[in-house]
């Protein structure tokens, strides 16, 4: 009776008789169950429908992938091709095109799994061997891959394709170091072994993580972090591959150049580029394609793709300019090779930085890259003394190191950078202290250099033991095109 009276008071009604007691009781029960009803709806809201790829994101990522393919064939092929003597151009085009093709196939078979599936902190596992699970023919289901935004996904196939171009083109970069004297079979063996033991683990260490949607609450953070790659866990920033691609290939190139030895006549005979027009065309295709490489690394179409895009534009232009100007000042003639090399140096340096630094920071990075890499192909090259024929270390290695370190500087919001995500549960953004971040970047660089040095040494050593790294002297003198490939590039 008391309860009913209280309820009646709650409901603002007058004191009720027995007949209305039942109604009141029922209403009270209904109100008791209301919270349960509401929580049932909340439960439905707490498990949202699985995210579906956005058509704009997918379209952009497919285009980005196309652009990176173009960077390799014909971009890199022509850039390198024009730099060698005419008797060797086909050998360079072959090493790039066939090497690229070989590695894309291996990527699909096992590369993707070892790089981008859950394994340990150093390398992935075998869950995606033969791309198992990416597409399920029984159900027709296409798996999705995470981006950097919660609730945003792209089809995993797209991610496989995009990252496959990265793996393949990185190995092709090394071609420049051993050009004009390597045995074709040795080149392919080196690329396969290096891809497997150097590229895949570094890609895993730097880029593999569980994705933003895995960070649902604070208590899973430590567990999710532990599943990520070793260098990712350190907090290193590498948007599109300063470490994974450029330092990796640059150091491999240097090791290879040392192990294979100098070209016959190096330092005595003239071996200038035979066609700088091709080199310029190649450099231009690289620049245009690199927008896919860098802006596509945002994994979705949007603000960070835009940031990476403009940074790739401005840094490259700045580097082309600074190399040209310093060459003009120091050596009287601003050269086409210098302008093209400057542009590539800028592209290399901005690669780890593009989505991680501000708009003015990118220009500074570009200006510095032109100057530093100019030293890399002149002073530093003389110091090292190896015949890194097409300056893979001087441009990619040194440019990658510079870019990786400067990413730590210009990421900071105080210097105009976008900062980094400090908590993936809330996706809140902050800045690491500059010196602390630069130190993390330096550690990432060091780990990459050490890992790839060992991997490269093994790759070149095995190739040497299996088939021999160099062609015989008379074949090198005549030219690799006719002796290795039975073809002549120019009939005249």
């Amino acid at each position, binding site marked *: 009776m008391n309860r009913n009276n209280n309820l009646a008071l709650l409901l603002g009604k007058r004191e009720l008789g027995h007949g209305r007691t039942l109604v009141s009781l029922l209403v009270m029960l209904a109100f008791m169950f209301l919270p349960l009803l509401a929580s049932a709806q909340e439960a439905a809201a707490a498990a949202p429908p699985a995210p579906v790829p956005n058509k704009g994101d997918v379209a952009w990522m497919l285009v980005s992938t196309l652009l990176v393919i173009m960077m390799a064939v014909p971009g890199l092929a022509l850039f390198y091709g024009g730099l060698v003597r005419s008797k060797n151009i086909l050998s360079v085009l072959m090493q790039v095109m066939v090497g690229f093709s070989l590695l894309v196939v291996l990527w699909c078979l096992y590369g993707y799994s070892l790089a981008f599936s859950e394994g340990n902190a150093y390398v992935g596992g075998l869950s995606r061997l033969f791309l198992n699970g990416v597409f399920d023919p029984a159900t027709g289901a296409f798996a999705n891959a995470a981006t950097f935004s919660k609730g945003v996904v792209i089809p995993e196939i797209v991610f496989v394709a995009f990252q496959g171009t990265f793996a393949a083109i990185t190995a092709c970069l090394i071609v420049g170091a051993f050009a004009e004297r390597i045995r074709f079979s040795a080149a392919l063996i080196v690329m396969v072994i290096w891809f497997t033991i150097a590229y895949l683990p570094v890609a895993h260490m730097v880029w593999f993580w569980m994705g933003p949607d895995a960070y649902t609450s604070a208590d899973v953070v430590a567990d999710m972090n532990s599943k990520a790659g070793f260098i990712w866990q350190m907090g290193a920033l590498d948007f599109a591959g300063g470490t994974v691609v450029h330092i990796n290939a640059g150091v491999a190139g240097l090791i290879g150049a040392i192990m294979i030895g100098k070209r016959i006549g190096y330092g005595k005979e003239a071996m200038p580029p035979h066609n700088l027009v091709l080199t310029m065309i190649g450099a231009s295709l690289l620049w245009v394609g690199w927008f896919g490489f860098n802006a596509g690394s945002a994994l979705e179409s949007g603000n960070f793709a835009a940031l990476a895009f403009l940074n790739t534009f401005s840094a490259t232009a700045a580097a082309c300019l600074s190399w040209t100007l310093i060459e003009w000042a120091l050596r009287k*003639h601003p050269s086409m*090779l210098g302008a093209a*090399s400057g542009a590539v140096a800028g592209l290399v340096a901005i690669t780890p930085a593009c989505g991680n630094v501000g708009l003015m920071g990118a220009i500074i990075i570009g200006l510095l890259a032109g100057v530093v890499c100019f030293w890399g192909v*002149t002073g530093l090259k003389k110091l090292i003394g190896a015949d890194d024929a097409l300056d893979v270390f001087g441009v990619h290695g040194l440019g990658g190191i510079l870019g990786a370190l400067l990413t730590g500087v210009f990421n900071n919001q105080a210097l105009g950078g976008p900062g980094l995500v400090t908590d993936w549960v809330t996706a809140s953004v902050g800045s690491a202290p500059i010196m602390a971040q630069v130190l993390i970047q330096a550690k990432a660089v060091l780990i990459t250099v050490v890992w790839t040095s060992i991997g490269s040494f093994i790759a070149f050593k095995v190739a040497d033991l299996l088939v021999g790294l160099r062609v015989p002297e008379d074949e090198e003198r005549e030219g690799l095109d006719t002796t290795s490939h039975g073809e002549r590039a120019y009939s005249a």
Partner: protein
Amino acid sequence: MKLITAVIKPFKLDEVRLALADVGVQGLTVTEVKGFGRQRGHTELYRGAEYQVDFLPKVKLEIALDDAQVSRAIDAICKVARTGKIGDGKLFVTDLSQAIRIRTGESGPDAL
């Protein structure tokens, strides 16, 4: 019969060809060559590699002539090919022991 071999600066070729036509010389053979005498070469720089290029592009003419035409041809060539600067080139005259027109089989001065 004589064979004149003249190495001249490439841009002078058209003027020399016209000057020779004016003195009645009908045919000549031209090759692109490289060479140097007292003319200095230049340095080319490709990234870190410096090349001293001594050879300069020249054009070589070979003209087979009857003895009577030789001095007129030499005058025509030298007058027109001269710029006064180092690198103008050189002209050589050698004896030609036989000449044959391939189409008709004519030989000697008739072949020229």
